[in-house]
């Protein structure tokens, strides 16, 4: 009974196995592999966006349901070219490898360790708060410092800092410019749109006709990936996820980057289909991004100011014939160009209803 409590089984693995596996994985118990360990390539915590190798968690989830043999095969006799190259020379005993699998299985159960919150900024903020308190007390009661200007400067400086933090945070509120989360599949726009020159609208094909540009359905990916099964950077692991998703009918849960607030209604069709704007105008140099990043801050000011600067296809599009008087003015030269703003693009009702 005692033994069982101490070595309680989790999902069929003992604590000891898991601990031992962890040490192997992290290289604390070295095994013969060019001086590296698993963790050198397979991150435990996602930090490096350019690491094309699958993360520990991804591997864990993939192999959680599979038996040890397939796990072992992927390490010792991998199928993919890339994996064959990098995994060449791994030498680890079978029992030890089993503990690694146990460790990974356990990880798939409990999830990655939470990142401890860093409290530096808060500490700085509180420190300035304390400075304010001190300066006030000094000014009112202690009066120990001869040059009164010192506490006054400290007071104003601290208040300024706190004000700055608060206003910056307030502006950032609900914004996420630069947001570039890891995606469940290491999909690179650089590889697809940049290096291979695939047109944006091949995948996001509803951009011209619907409000939504559309995230391509997995069967669209399969148009190409039915043949292309191994990538130059990522090997087979990432592409296998697509195949797996289609075969098992498990939809891929992408993390959304561009989240407009729910009270904003945006239509891709108007901007791409009618105004013929380039995708890059808002989304930035997507063809250069390995990891998709939110380019613009998507603030209301950003929208509104673009409307103030951008010309409408006034003569080209038949719809604008309703604006008869403006056409007349254009004919006689009173009106050089029509900005989006001039036809009411900055009205509330255009986006909020």
């Amino acid at each position, binding site marked *: 009974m005692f033994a069982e409590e101490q070595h309680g089984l989790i999902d069929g693995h003992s604590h000891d196995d898991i601990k031992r596996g962890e040490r192997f994985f992290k290289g604390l118990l070295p095994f013969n592999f060019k001086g590296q360990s698993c963790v050198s390539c397979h991150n435990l915590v996602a930090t490096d966006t350019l690491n094309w190798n699958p993360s520990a968690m991804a591997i864990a989830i993939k192999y959680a349901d599979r038996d040890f043999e397939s796990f072992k095969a992927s390490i010792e006799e991998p199928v993919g070219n890339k994996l064959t190259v990098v995994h060449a020379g791994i030498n680890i005993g079978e029992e030890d490898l089993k503990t690694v699998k146990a460790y990974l299985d356990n990880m798939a159960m409990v999830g990655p360790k939470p990142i401890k919150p860093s409290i530096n900024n808060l500490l700085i903020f509180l420190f300035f708060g304390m400075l304010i308190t001190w300066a006030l007390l000094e*000014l*009112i009661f202690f*009066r120990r410092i001869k040059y009164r200007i010192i506490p006054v400067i400290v007071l104003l400086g601290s208040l300024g800092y706190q004000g700055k933090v608060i206003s910056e945070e307030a502006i950032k509120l609900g914004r996420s410019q630069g947001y570039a989360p890891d995606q469940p599949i290491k999909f690179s726009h650089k590889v697809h749109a940049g290096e291979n020159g695939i047109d944006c609208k091949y995948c996001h094909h509803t951009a011209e006709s619907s409000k939504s540009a559309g995230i391509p359905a997995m069967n669209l990916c399969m148009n190409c990936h039915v043949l292309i099964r191994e990538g130059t950077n990522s090997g087979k692991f990432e592409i296998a996820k697509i195949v797996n998703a289609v075969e098992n009918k498990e939809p891929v849960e992408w993390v959304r980057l561009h989240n407009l607030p729910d009270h904003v209604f945006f239509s891709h069709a108007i901007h791409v289909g009618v105004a013929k704007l380039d995708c890059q105008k808002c989304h930035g140099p997507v063809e250069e991004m390995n990891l998709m990043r939110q380019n613009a801050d998507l603030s209301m000011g950003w929208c509104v100011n673009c409307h103030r600067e951008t010309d409408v296809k006034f003569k080209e599009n038949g719809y604008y014939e309703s604006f008869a008087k403006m056409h007349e003015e254009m004919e006689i030269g009173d009106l050089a160009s029509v900005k989006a703003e001039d036809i009411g693009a900055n009205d509330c009702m255009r986006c909020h209803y």
Partner: protein
Amino acid sequence: MVGVFDNEFDLVKAFEKVKAKGVKVDEVYTPYPIHEILEGMGKKTRITHAAFFYGLFGALTVLGGMYYAAVISWPLNFGGKPFNTFPSFIVVTIVATILIVTITTLFTFSARAQIFPGKAAKIVHPGATDDKFVMVLKSGEAGFEAGEIEQILKDSGASEIIK
């Protein structure tokens, strides 16, 4: 030399006499303002002028700001009114100007009169804020003769003379 008086009239009398002697009175501390002294000290304040300019500046800023916001920056159609609704602007201009004048004048006052939070008072005589009228003369001043002055103070009814 410090002369302490019990009432306004004695102080004023002494003040006039000292001045007549040609001796410059350094400072007078009273529980309430006495116009004869304030005038007699020969000091002038330009706070009122400053306030006027603050007002002028404030009014123009407010009016200009509103014109910019409502006509240039983002004109919006409210109830079919023109963008430049000048009569509406006036209301806010008046009030906001008053606010600006008040705050800036207070700061000016605070700076010029050296009255601000945390200032330690240099108390010449503790009764000066209660019921005493205090006149301070500096011994280094031209025409200052201690004995003579003391006599003047005494004659005018000083209740206490501190040297």
